[in-house]
């Protein structure tokens, strides 16, 4: 997973990094508060965010600035606040439209086999460990051909099919 240019994902990865590296864990508001923000941001990147979540992030970061023990935690909270105000639109896009323009937040996206490109070779079906891909190999001149498609509700966006498709027929949409 790479943040690319998505501000929500960048913020999430920053926070995850903070909790893993910088955070000393000596005071509860910073330790618990940043983790709760990670939860909220993860929710948003998965397309499960709600409009109150932005307010919640605002509140938590303000409170951390008030209550945390040292500068490290407070600085992290300031970073979040800045991101929220600078990239308001991107947060809203993720929350309201369940869409990540930068295509960083894979969990919101659908894997889809573009029938225009698909050669019906079947490689993707073979590698899918979730049995999310159905369809039959192309048999020339058969009229009732069953094209390949991905059952999104079973698909976990693991990316294996993406890797094996030689014609780039599998698209993230």
């Amino acid at each position, binding site marked *: 997973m790479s943040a690319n240019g998505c501000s929500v994902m960048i913020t999430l990865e920053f926070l995850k990094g903070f909790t893993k590296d910088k955070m000393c864990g000596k005071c*509860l*508001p910073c330790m618990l508060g940043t983790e*709760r923000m990670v939860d909220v941001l993860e929710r948003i990147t998965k397309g499960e965010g709600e409009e109150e979540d932005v307010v919640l992030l605002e509140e938590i970061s303000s409170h951390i600035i008030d209550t945390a023990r040292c500068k490290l935690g407070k600085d992290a909270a300031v970073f979040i606040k800045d991101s929220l105000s600078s990239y308001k639109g991107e947060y809203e896009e993720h929350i309201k439209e369940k869409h990540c323009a930068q295509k960083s937040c894979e969990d919101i996206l659908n894997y889809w086999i573009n029938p225009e490109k698909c050669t019906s070779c079947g490689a993707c079906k073979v590698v899918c460990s979730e049995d999310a891909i159905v369809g039959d190999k192309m048999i020339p001149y058969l009229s009732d051909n069953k094209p390949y498609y991905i059952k999104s509700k079973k698909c976990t966006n693991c990316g294996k099919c993406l890797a094996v498709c030689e014609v780039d027929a599998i698209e993230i949409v």
Partner: protein
Amino acid sequence: MSDQVTVTINGKEIKVPEGTLIIQAAKMAGIDIPHLCYCECLPSTGSCRVCLVEVEGGKGLVASCAQKVKNGMVVDTDTEKVREARRFVLELILSNHPGDCMSCDKNGACDLQKYAYELGIEKTSFSMKDPGYDVDRSNPFIERNYNLCILCGRCVRICKQQGADIIDFVKRGMVTKVATPMDRPLQESGCDFCGSCLAVCPVGALVEVDRRFCGREWEMKETKTVCSYCGCGCELVFSTVDGQIMRATGEVSCDYICSKGRFGWDFVESSERITKPLIKKDGVLTESTYEEAIKVVAERLIDIKKKHGANSIGGFMGAGNTNEVAYLFQKFLRAGIGTNNIDSSARFLGFPALIDLYEALRDGAVVSMKDVEEADVLLLVNADLTASYPRVGASVKKAILNGAKVVVIDSKKTEISELADLHIEPQVDSEEFVLSGILKELLEENLHDEKFTKKCKNFDEFKKSLDGLKVETIEKETKTSKDFLKEAAKLYGEGKKTIILFGAETVSSQSMGLIADIALLTGRTKASVLPCLLSSNLRGTIYMGALAGFYPGARRANEIGNDFKKIWERDLPDEMGLSAMEMVENMGSSVLGMYIVGADPVAQFPNSSKVAKAFSSLDFLVVQDVFLTETAKMADVVLPGATLAESNGTVVNLEYQTKEVKAALEPLAKPDWETIADLSERMDYTMEYSSEKEIAKEIKSLVPIPKKIEKNTYDFIVVKPKKSGEEPDGKYPYALIVGETSFGFYDGQRTRNSKLSILELNKGNYAGFNPEDAESLSLKEGDAVLISSRRGKITTSVKMLGSLPKGLLFMPSCHEERGVLASDNVDSKLKSPQHRLIAVSVSKGGASK
């Protein structure tokens, strides 16, 4: 007194000492600032941020547990800003606390719940997170549910301060958890189960297993009484629901109480308790009524007295009863029966040391445990404090944290010796030489108090005797370099507040004299020693006269005036009375009837096979006890006794302080004093007391409350050091000592009937070996081993004890057969057995139990 500063808290102006924390200053002003990680007895960490307050002129909020007051400071503890911050932190904590108060046993005593309620928090506004840790229910003492842990760290800090220092935070961030090394269960991590962590946990993460689902906080009745184990006499608060003990705690959550105090009370509720009188019929002890049993005992005792005289009857009791019971028992024998044949376990458990101490220094020399915590040099002689008298051990640990220097004289390693500045490990049984050596070094280094020694008549004689002892002799006998003795002398001599601690039952009479000499030589006649006592009322038992040769008030039996006769309304016997071992010697001949209360001579006395034989030759034996002891099994009549948890009265602890005992439970049988009084009535010696309070009144009218008397002139005790035990030889090449263990106690009667016993190998029925000795004998942990002394032999299990020096074996005092091997030689003066060191031989084999 330190300088005072003035602060204003919530508009209230108060003066507090400089250096006071804001949270403490607020408390002095009657204002409670919510707090979770802060705990009065522990260093602050400022981590939970619940105690945030506003300080005027400051920027932002301040953790009141971490900031000290300044003169003129203006603090607000309850502004909207403070409440909002507090609410935020509490809601965060709650989001990580996936419990439901409904079935949590901390409901009603939980600080998190309390503060949430006070702030009106009904639910956390954050998503809940459940760490999903398994609840540790692997030991029967402490249930550990770290899902409810709020990471306040109180348990970690108190374990460092007064526990075994085995828990700490592991990992970081959200996966931070409190754990033992490698996250092993407590019972495999060296935990001493003092339960201090339990006591300070503000939430439901640590809970007593005994109380889970057995009654809620508000249903509990609390009774403050005294612990029935060792002589520390810790104050315990029993919480009961429907007459069942749920837990024992200290008065304040930070109070140290040991594993026995906190968890060892369950013997009281053991199914092995005797609850009905038993009468031997056709050789079998058979349940009977109380009335019949009393009738039989009275008739038989009257009969023996009529036929053989009052002195054919004797009495013996333990040293763990209340003063009132001890007093009444000796009164019954002396005035009721008419014999001075009354003795008690006190004689085996430090009476010689106490009497010597009294002769040499008087009681004014005895300090309190608080004094120990404030001392700067401590000298420990033959005292495994944390095992034998854990509360004293905790005080020494606190002293060490406070910077005290500690010198330990002990042939084996102990928990404290590992922390000590100097550990002198002399050849076993050579303490007298070590102490004499220290005396020599004190003189040589000119550390003695000349002004004081001049006032002592026999200083010259004393000095001469010391001069006569060669340093080489000392080094040879102790196998210890004199450099160590010099270091010890310098540490002790140069200390400001110095205290000598010793086990009263583990030092010889001569060692006691030498300890007194060390104090005298440095002019430390007051507040200078702490004799550690093993029994909960050793001193009271002696003072109440439950001891051959002494009447209440420590009056010698041959020097009593008319007051006893007057108040007891009887003529009293002229003889001094037989001591315990003398009674044993005469059983079957001149001693034909015995009355035993709360003691098990047949198992406890040295050379127990001989003792058992003696008891079997009695005409009549009555035993009053809580369990069916070895002695009780031989009795003609057994009367049920009450435990201290069911008794009212007083005891005297090792600080010589009188403590009040209160019944937390309805006694399973009659209180002991009532049984004695009923028996006495039945034998036509009236004892009409409405309660133990009336007995106390009578005691008060006869003898003054034990108090610390000081002496005016002092003399040195002139001692020629020697070894007092049985020396190992070719036939019996090993030395064996008997001693206390962490989870066993004394004769094991109580700990064996407690869940504590699971913490000792084979419930304490083992012998400890130095691993090298074991190897040379081809013994492995758990092997069966046959141990023989001149008195007898036993088969037991092997346990490796790295703390022992080569050649020394260790046996827990709670070992069921501890009496078999010991010598019954008695000190000619004090009639006290010298059973400390036993020469034994060892061979592999025999059936392990």
